[in-house]
């Protein structure tokens, strides 16, 4: 019998020296930074459509424009954040600029009443989001021993998603107390953004790991483009092209009518709850059976969610099952890809490696959305899902054989 890296931690939940496994304090602190920041952004996101249309009197078309900005801007600056973090060797300061930009955007939102001003504010917020993501994930990666990386990302993403769930609740409580209190929600949101910046700036050390300080030298793409990462980028990009985002799944459910139409505004909440509750267990599972393996099975859950929507069961069953599977998909991919990418490149270029993977996924999913829109109207939502699902079904075994060895190919000292 031989022992592989991937099944080493499977034998027990305790580390070799017998202590129960914990995540590094800095991971928890970063988790709380994300939690308060997500409370900040999601409380405003929950009221933004009503504020823009009902209070400012902007047309709903303008809201559509701002919504597209909200979704699109951050993917493009992510690589920049990763490179800046690696180049300066100070991921914390790059992340801080990212969180700071979003906090500044919250401040100016209080005084923005026109479409142009609000577009600038939203773009600034999303640029901040793009900048901070990769450096923050690199810090989580650097602070965590290899065998509990999935767990650490699970803890971080669970806290992050908890913030995304609490934000709208706070917005609701405020509007229940002060029915036209949009500005109050924004002031509270600014407060949470300031807390996030202060928490990161004051309580997170710049170099959370004991890793030796790398020599300063110019970064080159070939340092990042290790064979393992290139392989991950290709596979993640290909799978991203076959990822029909949750928005389309919701619209496909809506298109079937009935149950889903009544609950449409709640569908993403269901997905979030599934993600929130599964992030930690699936992260642990990834540590045991291998992160690349879990990534593939996560896309299997996505495939199953297509099937749940495309085949005519009762709409209520389809909806519940699809949301659960989507939550599983996000829990098995979002943090897991960052964990995987961070270990496939040398530590000095970790943020760039993570940023590359996240950008490739985001760009592939954007391309996928555009393509799926065409399929949708050519064949209808259900047939379009069957088409994409069939390709995904063929692609998954190929992807699995392409990435199965990545679980063993760690470049880091761990």
């Amino acid at each position, binding site marked *: 019998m031989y022992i592989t890296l991937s099944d080493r931690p499977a034998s027990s939940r305790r580390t070799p020296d017998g202590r129960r496994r914990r995540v590094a304090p800095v991971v928890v602190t970063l988790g709380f930074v994300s939690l308060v920041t997500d409370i900040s952004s999601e409380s405003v996101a*929950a009221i933004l*459509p*009503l504020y823009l*249309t*009902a*209070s*400012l*009197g902007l*047309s709903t*078309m303008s*809201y*559509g424009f701002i*919504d*597209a900005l909200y*979704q699109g801007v951050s993917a493009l600056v992510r690589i920049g954040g990763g490179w800046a973090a690696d180049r300066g060797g100070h991921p914390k300061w790059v992340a801080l600029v990212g969180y700071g930009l979003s906090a500044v955007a919250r401040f100016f939102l209080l005084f923005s009443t026109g*479409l142009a001003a609000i577009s600038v504010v939203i773009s600034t917020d999303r640029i901040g989001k793009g900048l901070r993501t990769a450096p923050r994930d690199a810090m989580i990666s650097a602070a965590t021993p290899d065998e509990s990386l999935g767990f650490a990302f699970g803890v971080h993403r669970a806290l992050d998603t908890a913030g995304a769930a609490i934000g*709208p609740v706070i917005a*609701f409580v405020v*509007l229940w*107390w*002060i*029915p*036209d*209190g949009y*500005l*109050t929600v924004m*002031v*509270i949101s*600014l*407060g949470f953004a*300031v*807390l996030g910046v*202060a*928490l990161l700036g*004051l*309580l997170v050390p710049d170099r959370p790991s004991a890793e030796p300080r790398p020599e300063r030298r110019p970064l080159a793409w070939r340092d990042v483009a290790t064979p393992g990462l290139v392989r991950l980028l290709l596979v993640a990009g290909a799978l991203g092209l076959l990822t029909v*985002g*949750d*928005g*389309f799944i*919701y*619209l496909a459910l*809506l298109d079937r009518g009935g149950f889903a*139409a*009544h*609950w*449409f*505004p*709640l*569908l993403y*909440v269901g997905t979030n709850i599934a993600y929130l509750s599964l992030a930690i267990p699936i992260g642990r599972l990834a540590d045991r059976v291998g992160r690349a393996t879990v990534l593939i099975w996560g896309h299997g859950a996505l495939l199953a969610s297509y099937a749940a929507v495309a085949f005519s069961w009762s709409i209520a069953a389809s909806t519940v099952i699809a949301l659960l599977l989507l939550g599983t998909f996000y829990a098995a991919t979002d943090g897991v890809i960052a964990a995987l990418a961070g270990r496939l490149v040398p530590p000095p270029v970790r943020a760039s490696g993570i940023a590359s993977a996240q950008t490739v996924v*985001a760009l592939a*999913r*954007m391309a996928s*959305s*555009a393509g799926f*829109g*065409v399929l949708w*109207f*050519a064949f209808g939502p259900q047939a379009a899902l069957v088409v994409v699902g069939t390709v995904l079904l063929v692609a998954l075994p190929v992807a699995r054989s392409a990435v199965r060895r990545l679980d063993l190919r760690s470049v880091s000292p761990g």
Partner: protein
Amino acid sequence: MNQRTRIALFATVAVVTVGGVSAYAVTSAADYQQRHHRSPTVPVVPDPPDPHAPHHVATGPRIVFRHTGIDDHIGLVASVPLDDPGGPRTFTQVACDRVDATEDRASCLRIERGVVTTYSLTEYDADWRPVEEVSLPGIPSRTRLSPDGRLVASTTFVSGHSYMQVGFSTATEIRDFGGGSHGNLEKFDLVIDGDHVAPRDRNVWGVTFVDDTTFYATVGTGGETYLVRGDLAARTLTSVADHVECPSLSPDGTRIGFKQATRRDGQTWWTPAVLDLSTGERTVLAGETRNVDDQVEWLDEDTLLYGLARDDQPGVTDVWELDTRADAEPRLLIEQAWSPAVVR
């Protein structure tokens, strides 16, 4: 800075932030209470003498609308007599964001604030008792009843929730009053300039009824907008003109009031206009220079009504009237009002 200093500094920031935010919230709550516990500044018909009457129901020719004054009646549906629009308004106890009414029926689109905001359509009888309530998939935009009240149309704006999704589209449905739905109008057969087409980006909005089979609406696709004539029985939409948004059929059925899009300062700008259905002649009512984002309503054969937001008071809107002559100037008809519906 050592760790203790950092923790002390963070604690200070936290206390100042939480304190400042709480103070702001308490102040604005008190401010809200003060603003919303006052009576309307416009004349109001006193409450009925019978305290058991469920609602104060107005009858006769009237304009039904949403009251938007910042006071303890905000959001409630009210009405004024057709021959005295500036006179005292009669209030119902029903709050709506969009309303349409006939002599004995009403449709009401509502934003229901909650942990997740939801949206609904409620159909009311002559006494403002709910007959049917259904959930809507997005932000309420337009609603219209057919002339005899047997059909209800609603338009909502639906947006996806993640990454670069389809973003934003409309859902427009026609329902039987008190009954089932005829489905999303996007699924009807679409004929543009004589060709059967099925574009992927089509949206339908702003229904106006001729009778219980025929209606007009706007179809948007490929950056163009079309006036379509819909047939509920045949489930078809057939284009009859282009560049028409949010149509509204005149009482005699000969003309369409609508808003026409232009570009101004890089933004879409809408101006009220009228289309003669038999001659195809268009009159743009450029005397209205403000941006009108509303489905117009006909006050009579030569006058349009629409709501406009006030620049200086968020949430407060007024209903304006505009003659259908090309050079007509808008006049304020009902202050602190929105979503006018004329009951003749």
